[in-house]
C-alpha cells in the first residue's frame, strides 16, 4: 500500500503520531485541568462547608444556648448530635462555661486531623441573661469527607477529561486520515510511480470537487507543474541528445573547418601586419601605390576579381574611386556621377552591403557601377565620418561570417591608410592657408583698415628710409599733407557712418594719382592724409596736389554744413626737401603742415611751402 522507503527506519503513519501527541497533550491537559478543577472544587467545597458550619451554628445557637442555660443536657446532646449530623461537620464540640466539654459527631474524641480542619466557634449566650455566656460551640469540618469528595470529584473530572481527550484524539486521527494522510499516501504512490521514460497521467486526488482549494490542491498543482516541466525538459533533452549525436558525427569535419579558418585568420593577421608595416614611414608620393598594393593583397586574400576604394568627394554626393586593384581599373572608373551611386544605402545590416548573383542586395546602382552582380561593399570610417567604401567584386561575403569580420579589419586598415592620406592632404592645405594669412596680416599691419591706404605706422617705418635714400641719391622728396575741410561738421551733419563713407570716397581718389613706385599714400588719422612722393619736386608735387583737390571737388560729395561750398573739399599743404632747411623728415613734414595751415585759411586750395 505505502511506497517503499529506502531508509532502514520503520514506517509509522502520521495519524498514529498525531494521535500519540494529541493523547499525550490531552493527558497533560487533563492532568492540569483536573488539578485546577479539583482545586476549585476543593475551595468551593470548603466554602460550602464553612457556610454550612455557619448555617448549623446559627440555626442551633439560640436553642442550644437556651437548653444549656436550662441545663437540659439531653436536649443539648440531642441538638449537638443534630448539628453533628450535618454531613460536613466532623465534630461538634460544646464547651460550657462551667468547664464541661461535650462532643458529638463521627469523631467522639478530639483528633489531630480534625483539630487542623477548618472550624467555627460561636459563643452561646443565655436567653435570660444576655451578658452570660453559657458556653462555646465549636464546629469542625469533616476534613476526611472533604477529601473523599475531592477524590470522587477528581475521579469524575479525570474520567470525563480522559474520555474527552480520547474521543478528541480519535476524531482528530480519523479526520487526519480522511483529509490528509490518505491523499498524501496517494500522492506518494503517484510520485513513486513516476519514471523518466513514462511520466504517466497528471496527479488527481480521489475526493469530491470542492469550492475552495487547500494545501493538498497546492501540492497536487505543484506536482503537476513539476510533471509538465519534466515533460518539457525530457522532450528538450531528447532533442538535444539527437542534435548532440548529429554534431558528434560531424565534429571532426567541423574541427577541420575550424582549424582551416583559424589558419586563414592567422594568415590574414600576418597580411594585415605586413600591409601596415609597409605603410609606416611611407613617403607621400608612394602612398597611393601602397594603397593599391594593399587592395591587391586583400582582393587576392578574399578571392575577389577587383578591389576598389571609393572616397566621398568633398562637396559632392557621389564617390570617386581613388584606388583600385588591378590599378588599370582605377583610371576607367575614376569618377562616377552622383546619379549613379546613391550616397548611403541605409541597410538593416549596418555598414555591410552584400549582393550575390541571386540578388540579395536591391541596390542596382552599385552593380552597374562595379560591373558585376556579385560584390561586397563595406563602409569605411575616415575621421568618424562615413567617408569611404571598400568594394570587392566577384565575391559575396556573408554578413555574419568570419570573412566579414576579416573584411572589417581590412576596412580599418584601409581606413587608416586613407586617414594617413587625408592627413597629408590636410597638412599641405594648411600650409598654403597659413602663407596666405601671413600675407594678409602683413597688409593689415601696414594699411588703414577703412581706406586701404598705408597707415601711420607703415608711414613712420618708410619715411626716414625714403628721406635717407633721397639724401644719398640727392633726389628731391616731396610730401603732401591733406585735410578734408570742416569734416567735423560733416560728421555732425551726416553721422559717422556717412563720415566713414566720405573718407573712403576721398581716399579712393588718391591711388589713381599716385601710382608710381615708391609713392606712399597714408591716412595719418581722422580726416588727415599724407602722400610721400620720392623723386618729385615741389612744383610737380603741387601740381599733383592740385589734381587731387580737383578730383575731390569732382566727387561732388554734398556737404550742406560746409562754409566753403555745398560739397566736400580738401586743403593740401605741400613741402619739398630742401637740404638747407630740412635736417630730417619730421622737419619736412612740419613744413608741409605749416603749408596746410596756410591753405586752411581759405580752404579748398593747395599751398606750397
Amino acid at each position, binding site marked *: 500500500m505505502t511506497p517503499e522507503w529506502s531508509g532502514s527506519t520503520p514506517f509509522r503513519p502520521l495519524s498514529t503520531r498525531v494521535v500519540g501527541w494529541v493523547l499525550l497533550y490531552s493527558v497533560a491537559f487533563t492532568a492540569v485541568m483536573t488539578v485546577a478543577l479539583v482545586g476549585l472544587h476543593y475551595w468551593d467545597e470548603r466554602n460550602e462547608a464553612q457556610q454550612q458550619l455557619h448555617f448549623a451554628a446559627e440555626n442551633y445557637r439560640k436553642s442550644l444556648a437556651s437548653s444549656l*442555660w*436550662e441545663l*437540659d*443536657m*439531653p436536649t443539648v446532646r440531642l441538638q449537638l448530635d443534630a448539628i453533628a449530623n450535618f454531613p460536613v461537620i466532623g465534630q461538634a464540640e460544646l464547651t460550657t*462555661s*462551667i*468547664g*464541661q466539654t461535650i462532643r458529638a459527631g463521627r469523631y467522639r474524641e478530639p483528633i489531630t486531623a480534625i483539630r487542623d480542619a477548618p472550624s467555627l466557634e460561636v459563643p452561646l449566650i443565655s436567653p435570660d441573661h444576655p451578658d452570660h455566656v453559657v458556653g462555646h460551640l465549636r464546629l469542625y469540618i469533616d476534613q476526611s469527607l472533604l477529601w473523599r469528595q475531592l477524590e470522587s470529584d477528581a475521579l469524575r473530572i479525570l474520567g470525563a477529561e480522559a474520555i474527552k481527550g480520547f474521543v478528541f484524539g480519535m476524531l482528530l486521527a480519523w479526520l487526519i486520515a480522511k483529509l490528509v494522510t490518505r491523499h498524501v499516501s496517494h500522492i506518494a504512490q503517484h510520485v513513486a510511480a513516476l519514471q523518466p521514460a513514462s511520466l504517466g497521467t497528471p496527479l488527481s486526488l480521489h475526493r469530491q470537487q470542492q469550492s475552495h482549494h487547500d494545501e493538498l490542491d497546492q501540492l497536487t498543482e505543484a506536482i503537476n507543474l513539476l510533471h509538465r516541466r519534466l515533460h518539457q525538459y525530457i522532450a528538450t533533452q531528447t532533442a538535444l541528445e539527437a542534435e548532440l549525436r548529429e554534431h558528434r558525427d560531424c565534429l571532426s569535419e567541423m574541427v577541420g573547418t575550424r582549424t582551416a579558418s583559424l589558419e586563414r585568420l592567422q594568415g590574414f593577421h600576418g597580411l594585415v601586419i605586413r600591409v601596415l608595416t609597409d605603410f609606416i614611414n611611407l613617403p607621400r608620393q608612394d602612398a597611393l601605390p601602397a594603397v593599391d598594393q594593399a587592395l591587391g593583397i586583400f582582393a587576392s586574400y578574399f578571392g575577389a576579381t577587383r578591389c576598389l576604394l571609393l572616397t566621398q568627394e568633398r562637396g559632392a554626393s557621389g564617390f570617386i574611386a581613388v584606388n583600385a586593384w588591378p590599378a588599370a581599373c582605377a583610371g576607367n572608373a575614376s569618377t562616377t556621377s552622383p546619379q549613379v551611386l546613391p550616397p548611403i544605402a541605409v541597410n538593416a545590416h549596418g555598414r555591410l552591403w552584400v549582393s550575390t548573383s541571386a540578388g540579395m542586395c536591391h541596390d542596382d546602382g552599385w552593380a552597374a557601377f562595379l560591373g558585376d552582380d556579385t560584390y561586397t561593399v563595406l563602409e569605411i570610417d575616415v575621421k568618424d565620418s562615413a567617408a569611404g567604401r571598400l568594394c570587392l567584386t566577384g565575391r559575396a561575403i556573408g554578413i555574419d561570417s568570419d570573412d566579414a569580420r576579416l573584411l572589417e579589419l581590412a576596412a580599418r586598415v584601409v581606413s587608416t591608410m586613407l586617414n594617413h592620406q587625408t592627413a597629408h592632404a590636410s597638412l599641405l592645405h594648411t600650409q598654403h592657408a597659413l602663407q596666405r594669412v601671413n600675407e594678409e596680416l602683413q597688409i593689415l599691419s601696414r594699411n588703414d583698415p577703412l581706406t586701404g591706404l598705408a597707415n601711420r605706422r607703415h608711414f613712420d617705418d618708410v619715411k626716414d628710409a625714403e628721406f635717407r635714400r633721397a639724401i644719398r641719391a640727392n633726389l628731391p622728396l616731396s610730401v603732401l599733407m591733406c585735410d578734408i575741410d570742416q569734416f567735423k561738421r560733416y560728421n555732425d551733419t551726416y553721422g559717422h557712418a556717412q563720415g566713414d563713407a566720405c573718407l573712403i570716397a576721398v581716399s579712393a581718389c588718391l591711388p589713381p594719382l599716385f601710382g608710381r613706385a615708391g609713392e606712399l599714400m597714408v591716412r595719418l588719422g581722422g580726416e588727415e592724409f599724407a602722400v610721400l612722393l620720392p623723386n618729385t619736386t615741389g612744383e610737380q608735387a603741387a601740381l599733383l596736389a592740385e589734381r587731387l583737390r580737383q578730383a575731390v571737388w569732382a566727387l561732388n560729395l554734398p556737404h550742406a554744413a560746409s562754409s566753403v561750398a555745398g560739397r566736400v573739399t580738401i586743403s593740401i599743404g605741400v613741402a619739398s626737401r630742401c637740404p638747407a632747411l630740412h635736417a630730417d623728415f619730421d622737419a619736412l613734414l612740419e613744413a608741409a603742415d605749416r603749408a596746410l595751415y596756410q591753405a586752411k585759411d581759405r580752404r579748398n586750395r593747395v599751398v606750397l611751402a
Partner: protein
Amino acid sequence: MRRWLLLCCGFAVAIFNPLVHAADFNVVFINPGRSEEPYWRSATRFMQPAADQLDIDLEVLYAERDHLKMLELVKQVTQRSNKPDYLIIVNEKLAGGEMLKMADHAGIKTLFAYSAFESEQSAAFGKPRQKYRHWLGSITPNSVDAGRLTAEELVRQALRAGVVADDGKIHIAAIAGDKATPTGAQRLQGAVATFAAHPSVVLEQIVHGNWDRARAQEQAHALMLRYPKLNAFWVASDLMAYGAIDAAQAAGRIPGKSMLFSAINNSPEVLRARIDGRIASLAGGHFTAGGWALVMLYDYHHGKDFKKFGLELHMPLFALLDHESAQRFLTRFGDEDFSSVDFRRFSRHAQPSLRRYQFGLQAILQ
C-alpha cells in the same frame, strides 16, 4: 335483669371458686409509670388495700412511662369483650384526652386521678358528664400545695440552720419536673410564689430535671458551678433530689449542712433521708389519689355521687413530712403495706355520717 344476671354469675363464681373473691365491681387503672418505680408502686400499693376493703376488682396496667403505651392499653381494654366497670386514667403527658375518647366511646365510665385536664384540654373536652357522658370526673392532689409547703419549709430550715450566702440571703435553685405534666408545673408554681414572697430568698434559676435522677445530678452540678453562692435546691421529686445530693456531695457540699434540699414524695428512701437530715424539707401524700379515687368510685357505684362536691375534685392530699411524721410514716408504712388504713372510714357509702371527703396523708397517719 342484667344486674341480676351479674349477681348470679358472681354468686356462682363465689360458690365454685372460694379463692376468688366475689368483687362488687371491677376497675382498671392505667398506671403511667413503671411497676418497680417507687412512686407509682406505692400508688398501686395504696390502691390495692382500698380495693380489697371496698370489694373492688382492681386491675393495674403499667404503661411503663410510655404515653403511647397508655393509649394502647386503653384501646385493648375497650376492645375487651368483658369490659371493666370503671377506668382510672392519668393525664400523664397530656395523653388523657385520647384515652377518655376511647373509653367514652366504649362506654366505660372513666375517672381521672393524679392529674386531670389542663386548661387548654378542658376547653376542648368541656366538663365531665357533658360531651363525654362516661367521664365521671377527676380527683387530683393540690400540687401547688406541695410546692408551697416544701418551699416554706426549705426557707425555714435554711434560716434556722443559717445556711445563707455572704449577702445574708438564701440562694436557691429549683429543679422542676417537666414542662408538660401539669403536676410538675403546679408544684413549681407554688414554690416560685413562696420564694418570690420571701425577701431573703434569691431564686437563681429554674431548671427542669424531667424527673430524672442523673439529669438532676448533672444540672445540680452545673448550677453549683454557675452559682457559687447557692445554698439550697428546691427539687420537685425525690429521685431528682437524690441526684442533686450526689452532685453536692461530689462538689464537697454537705447535704443538710452547707446545702439544703427539698423533695416531694414519700418513698421509704426519701423518708429516711428526711429523717437523717439530708433532705431538709419534704412533702408527700399525693400517691394516695388512686386510693381515694377507688373510694369515690365505690361511693358512686353505690349511689353516692360526688357530684355535690364538684366533679373535678382538687384535694389537698399533700402534707409536709417533718422529722416526726416521716418517722411515723416509715414506721407504719415502711413496708408499703397500707392495709392498716381503714378505707371504709373515708367512704360516704360506708360511713353515711360522713359529710364530706377528708382525704389526705394526715388522715391516714393519725
